[in-house]
């Protein structure tokens, strides 16, 4: 498990004694509010903590999806280098948007999102997190509407950055070097790994989603089959009719089991895979940030150098612009050092994060695989038992 240096999360009930600091959040009770086009879902966010920075042992607030987005974007801005936990996708097909299943999937994903932040040793100290968990609804709304514009990166910007990074990665892979790019072979390998990983995971997730659908389809056809068998049995009468009727009923029972398992499969196997994909995409965003930081560092270093040369020239010429130039040079120098510090911090953080990420993901997927296996075993056993229980009845029918 990740090194929880300060706080334990909500996945376990706080069995730690009250002296140990904890911050536990749950996202619950989705409720549809508003009308027509403006309808949305609101969630109850319940925070339990004993941290002094918080307003009390328990706090309940109402939040909607765009509030979570606000939190995500603030953290992304402030904590460069850290892999911000991913959010579930923004929009869905209109028809699906208010289906019970979609709402449940989103709720689960949002719950995981907040808890990951609460568990992260850096992110959990964020003021924005505290605001999110505690501010009243009006304040939240005000903050949320401020965000449009300056801080929000439009999706197209990200796309461009991704494309840049991707093309740079492929360039490096193909052997073409471009300037203003880190020439760090370890890092290149990592980038390549991340990009490839996303493809593979996306494919696995796609098939997992289809598998859910197949379970539902099989359930439906078992139900239809069962009904048809029963109708045929009704025609027959006598022992054969009874046999048909029993079989039809069993078939319908199994249909229910399949629908249940389909849901389990979705929530406990497909969603974790989806989550993994999102997490990798989040890393890609950080990779883009790092590239930006590197570029900035380089540019500033260049510019500072030029300014320095210019300053020396002016000094030699004993120009009266020296003073001005001196100031400018100093300012640039500070900026350049700042940029270098920022870049180095990102590099350092990324290295830590990637290790944490790998370990976390191994665990998450291990759990998902286990649930998958258990679910499928449960289903298969259920099916086997159901059919098996029918055999003596069939024997009885045929002998009569």
């Amino acid at each position: 498990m990740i090194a929880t240096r300060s706080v334990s999360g909500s996945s376990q009930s706080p069995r730690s004694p009250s002296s140990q600091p904890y911050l536990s959040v749950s996202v619950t009770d989705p409720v549809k509010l508003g009308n027509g086009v403006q309808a949305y879902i609101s969630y109850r966010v319940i925070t339990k903590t004993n941290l002094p920075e918080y307003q009390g042992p328990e706090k309940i607030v109402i939040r909607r999806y765009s509030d979570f987005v606000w939190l995500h974007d603030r953290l992304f801005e402030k904590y460069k280098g850290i892999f911000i936990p991913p959010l579930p996708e923004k929009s869905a097909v209109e028809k699906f948007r208010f289906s019970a299943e979609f709402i449940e999937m989103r709720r689960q994903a949002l719950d995981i999102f907040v808890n990951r932040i609460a568990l992260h040793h850096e992110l959990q100290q964020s003021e924005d997190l505290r605001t999110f968990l505690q501010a009243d609804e009006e304040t939240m709304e005000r903050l949320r509407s401020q965000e449009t514009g300056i801080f929000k990166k439009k999706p197209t910007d990200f796309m461009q950055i991704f494309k840049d990074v991707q093309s740079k990665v492929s360039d490096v892979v193909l052997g073409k070097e471009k300037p203003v790019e880190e020439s760090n072979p370890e890092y290149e390998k990592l980038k390549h790994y991340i990009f490839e990983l996303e493809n593979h995971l996306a494919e696995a997730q796609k098939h997992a989603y289809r598998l859910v659908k197949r379970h539902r389809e099989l359930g439906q056809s078992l139900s239809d089959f069962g009904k048809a068998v029963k109708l045929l049995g009704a025609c027959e009468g006598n022992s054969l009719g009874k046999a048909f009727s029993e079989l039809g009923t069993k078939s319908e029972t199994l249909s229910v089991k399949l629908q249940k398992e389909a849901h389990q499969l979705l929530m406990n196997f497909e969603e974790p895979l989806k989550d993994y994909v999102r997490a990798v995409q989040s890393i890609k965003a950080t990779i883009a940030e790092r590239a930006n930081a590197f570029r900035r560092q380089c540019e500033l270093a260049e510019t500072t150098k030029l300014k320095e040369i210019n300053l020396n020239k002016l000094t030699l010429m004993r120009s009266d612009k020296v003073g001005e130039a001196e100031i400018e040079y100093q300012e640039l120098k500070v900026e350049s050092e700042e940029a270098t510090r920022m870049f180095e911090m990102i590099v350092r953080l990324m290295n830590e994060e990637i290790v944490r990420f790998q370990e976390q993901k191994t665990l998450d997927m291990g759990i998902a695989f286990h649930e998958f296996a258990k679910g499928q075993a449960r289903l298969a056993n259920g099916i086997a038992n159901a059919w098996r229980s029918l055999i003596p009845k069939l024997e009885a029918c045929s002998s009569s």
Partner: protein
Amino acid sequence: MMGNEEADDLHESREEMESLVLDEPSNGRSSASGTVPDHHDPLLSSSSSSFIDRHNPNSSLNAFLDPPSYAEAIFTSFDSSSNGHETPQLSSNSNPRSSDYLYISISDPQKEQELSNSLVPGGTTFYTYLITTRTNLLEFGGPGSEFSVRRRFKDVVTLSDRLSESYRGFFIPLRPDKSVVESQVMAKQEFLEQRRASLEKYLRSLAAHPVIRRSEELRVFLEVKGKLPLAKSIDVASRVLDGAARLPRQLLGEEGMDVNAKGGRDLLRLFKELRQSVATDWGGVKPLVVEEDKEFLERKERLAEFEQQLSNMSLQAESLVKAQQDIGETMGELGLAFVKLTKFETEEILFESQNARAADMKNVATAAVKASRLYRELNAQTVKHLDKLHDYLGIFLAVGNAFSDRSSALLTVQTLSSEVATLHARIEKLEAASSKIFGGDRSRMRKIEELKESIRVTEEAKTCAEREYEQIKENNRSELERLDKERHDDFMSMLRGFVVNQAGYAEKMANVWEKLAEETSGYAKDGS
């Protein structure tokens, strides 16, 4: 469903999959069933037997018996009787009361040239099939005889037509379609195989019928080498009349039932006239057929209801099979995706944790691939069981024909009765008219005598027709009894086979998943 690219991928990685999951001995049969359906979906073949015969088209023994399935071998412990769902196939070929058997197999399609008949130089070509029979029935050579003939599809049509004429009232299995369109559209090989399989199924079903199997027509078809010595039905005229007004052809054709030879030609003339009279009456008069047998009518209605529900169940069975196939395929694709992930995570180790993940993913891949194979096997078996439903739909068509035979025979009787009545009425009229003339009326007297002769002949024909009708009724009755019994047995064994199959495979799948659950149990949350 899967694009060509993905199909290639699947193929390419199949070796990987095989090597990844070879901890159970790869049974030749199961791997065969693993590769064959890639390109030939067992669901597409018209009969399940072609799926089996495909592996050994030349082994004549294999062609007679379904090879023991890997799946069924596991389940003999569940079956108190031997392989419940297999016996219908075999018992249909052997009479349980004695040890008579009549095994037929079809193979070796060959192209042949149509001779001289055509105007086009070179002529048209057609295909013949080798039909091999093994039997110990006395009608044929005697115990343990085996012989072969070559026949073309047209011969089968002839056989079918002659049987329909000779065995009215029986539930005669329907022959395969001519399927002209399909022969143009399908690949030659595929078409030939489909036709071969359907012909084989047809002949076997004829051999399974307790009465038909002993027919002269079938014997001749199976045994007599060279040109098939059965005449095609040449009775064009009666072909024109459709529906219940069809008169028994054998009274007009060359082969006869037991009819007084003396009245033969007269009957011929008479019936031609009758046909015309019926034909002209057809415009205004409704058909006279009135079936009085209430019990029969009830039975018929119940059967119609059964047929409808059967048809519905068959539809649902098809979609069940499709759903099973789909889930198996998707499971396989999921497994493949995890194979690729495993490969990816082991390719270049940048982090320690990749090893653990790769191991986990490999286990998932293995389980998914195994499950996918199990689904495929399950489905192949399911198809075999539920195929019975399709067979019975075919049987119901035969039942329909048999009932039509009955209706048309009854119509004949009633038509002849009414003709007799008409003739009597005419005689009365003539007698009444001629009695008014003093000394009688020579021409009218002659006419009356002619009519009396007509009545005599018609009465004889009516007697004949009544006998025919009674025979057909009896055939219907005995066939219905046979159908009820066989239906009961067949469906019970189908249901049982289906259930045992489902249970068995579900258990095997549970084992696969339980193994994975154990392999990942280290990640279990508390209390799970």
